[in-house]
């Protein structure tokens, strides 16, 4: 039984509210007393994945769950999927348009950053279908 379970919808191109789900997740975990270094790792992952939903996907959800000993982020979107996962996981590789770069995003660091910061990271994607990312963090 999770202590906390909440699903945050994230819409495509919604740059105005981008990051609000991550801010809520961060506040919730802070209240639970999660230590600051771990909290930062979780926040970086949720923010990067939330931005990817806004920038690259057709929209999706972040399913946030906290249990006694772990935090889980399960992210699913409605497409368009990633054709070449190996390329997408490479630092510096990005298909973000110039308009997104002007906002400070599209450095191609998001996915590698999530992989580095999560205790468990799993990505599945199918072109034309969608992308699913599971990240887990151990609570001490």
């Amino acid at each position, binding site marked *: 039984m999770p202590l906390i379970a909440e699903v945050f919808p994230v819409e495509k191109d919604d*740059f105005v509210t981008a990051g609000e789900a991550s801010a809520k997740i961060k506040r919730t975990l802070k209240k639970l007393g999660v230590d600051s270094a771990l909290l930062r790792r979780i926040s970086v992952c949720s923010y990067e994945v939330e931005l990817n939903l806004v920038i690259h996907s057709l929209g999706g959800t972040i399913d946030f769950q906290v249990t006694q000993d772990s935090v889980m982020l399960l992210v699913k979107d409605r497409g368009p999927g990633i054709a070449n996962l190996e390329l997408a996981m490479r630092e510096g590789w990005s298909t973000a348009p110039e308009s997104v770069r002007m906002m400070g995003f599209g450095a*191609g*660091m998001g996915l590698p950053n999530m992989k580095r910061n999560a205790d468990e990271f799993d990505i599945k994607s199918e072109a034309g279908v969608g992308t699913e990312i599971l990240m887990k963090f151990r609570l001490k």
Partner: protein
Amino acid sequence: MVIRRIAELLEAEVILGEDKLDMEVDMAFSSDMMSDVLAYVTGRTVLLTGLVNEHVIRTAEMVDLECIVFVRGKLPTQEIIDKAKENGMVLLATTHTLYCTSGILYSNGLTGIGRRK
């Protein structure tokens, strides 16, 4: 280095957080790319950036950055300032370029974040 010293060295305008200038930071990070901020920043860091939008504040919030210096004379809008205020941040603005801002602080003893392995 205390933020007050940073403001003095950069002849910066204190836009927000006059009451927090005695706060300490251990290092600085310069970037206009927010993903690089997310990839590198740990610990008590001041962000030097030429990017001025609300995403800078949100990004700072995610990695617990408490002080941001806007360079090249760029000034944040009231909306951005309000968002920073909600997060208890200090905002400074200097007319120096990003390179010179970094150089001034580095040569006065404020180190940067090391290379990643």
